């Protein structure tokens, strides 16, 4: 498992999409929007939003293309005839992906906290890291399921974008949902991305109740994503 984890990590860090979508874009977005919008508390909103977006893009979109390529080449079929349990493979590869997404999130947080003087205590950092870890792993595992639904790159692109955009637009990442239609507000309560944001804000603002409850909901999302990932790998490809 250790070899698989290390090799997956090495391969993930070489991925050019990672640098662009999960590090460069969120950092640029944090700085540009942070300096353009002069409102109290917006620095924390934009920093957490960009962190969460970077992790979502890496965990879901970048990973899903890599998984699709592996599935189409027969890697998962081959895994069925090796003695390594599927769960060990999933844990190793998704663990590496999660670690990379955590690094991406912490890089954005570091830039945001330096640019906008957001106070970061070790406790807040630990709480933020834990939320990123649980949410990041949830998105990576969800990508196993999404890659199973698609047969081509075009389908994958559409599906991953539909999911990512829905999660982003049904959340208060960049704007308040106070004036949004009631249905949007209702849907945002079932949106794991919204709970990710709530958890990050709870961690940075030391709102322990919000942080704990968000983490609890995200743990439920992680469990569901794990079940879907295992089902995706066990289901036979029928021609």
């Amino acid at each position, binding site marked *: *498992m250790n070899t698989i984890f290390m090799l997956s990590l090495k*391969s993930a860090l070489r991925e050019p999409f990672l640098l662009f979508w999960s590090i460069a874009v969120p950092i640029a977005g944090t700085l540009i929007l942070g300096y353009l919008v002069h409102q109290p508390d917006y620095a924390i909103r934009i920093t957490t939003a960009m962190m969460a977006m970077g992790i979502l893009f890496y965990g879901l979109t970048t990973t899903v293309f890599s998984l699709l*390529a592996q599935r189409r080449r*027969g890697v998962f*079929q*081959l895994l069925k*005839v090796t*003695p390594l349990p599927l769960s060990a493979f999933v844990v190793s590869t998704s663990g590496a992906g999660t670690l990379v997404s955590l690094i991406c999130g912490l890089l954005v947080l570091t830039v945001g906290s330096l640019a906008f003087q957001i106070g970061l205590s070790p406790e807040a950092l630990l709480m933020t890291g834990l939320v990123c870890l649980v949410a990041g792993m949830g998105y990576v595992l969800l990508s196993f399921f999404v890659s199973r639904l698609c047969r081509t790159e075009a389908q994958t692109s559409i599906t991953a974008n539909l999911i990512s955009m829905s999660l982003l637009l049904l959340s208060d990442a960049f704007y308040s949902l106070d004036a949004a239609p009631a249905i949007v507000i209702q849907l945002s309560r079932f949106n794991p991305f919204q709970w990710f944001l709530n958890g990050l804000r709870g961690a940075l603002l030391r709102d322990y109740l919000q942080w704990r409850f968000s983490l609890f909901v995200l743990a439920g999302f992680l469990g569901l994503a794990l079940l879907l990932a295992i089902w995706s790998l066990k289901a036979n490809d029928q021609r």
Partner: protein
Amino acid sequence: MNLIEAKGLTKKFQDKVVIKGLDMVIGQGEIVALIGPNGVGKSTTIAMLLGILSPDQGSITYWRTDYQQHLAVQLQTTPFFEGYSARENLALFSALYRIRLSEAELQNRLEACQLGDTGNTPAIRLSLGQQKRLALAVTTVHQPTLIVLDEPTAGLDPRASHEIRELIRQMVNNNQTVLFSSHDMEEVETLADRIIFMNNGQIIAEGAPKQLITENGVANLDELYLKLTQTPAVQPIN
């Protein structure tokens, strides 16, 4: 000793029965060729024997319960991990079989299949012949008892095919059992101890190459193939 005994295997995709009550035995130390026209169920049969697909009916018995630890598979599509070098793929496949190879061991294995200089090249950028050799190296990293190869020389030029056949011969010299599918009758004749001929999801002929040629009154396996698949003779264009 038999490594695999399959009895009455049947497989349906949607409403179409692609494998119809197939019985098959693979004995230790044999090189068995599975041949037949495209779409007759060779790959499906292999997938069922390996446990990738479950048969709708029938049973498969293996020579040991932990057979997966002693089995090697090269499917038609070489399943390298994208973004990984040849060396990293070798290390990763070793890990799948719970084997940890040192850098020196990895290099030795790469050199054994003439890939010593291309260890750091991404596996999917290697030429087709190099990819097939790497595929054999990664699938046999754990010294398996049974090696299953689905069209190992498909799409290769004559030299690359020759190199793959040499690697297969080396495996047999190591007392390993090989089951392979192929459309190249010359390859089948030179490599196989026994041929299993499939058509329409069933076995229609089985035996040693020379025995089948003699029994069917043909000059070679190409003719046998045409006879058994009842391909009409090509008529000259007037």
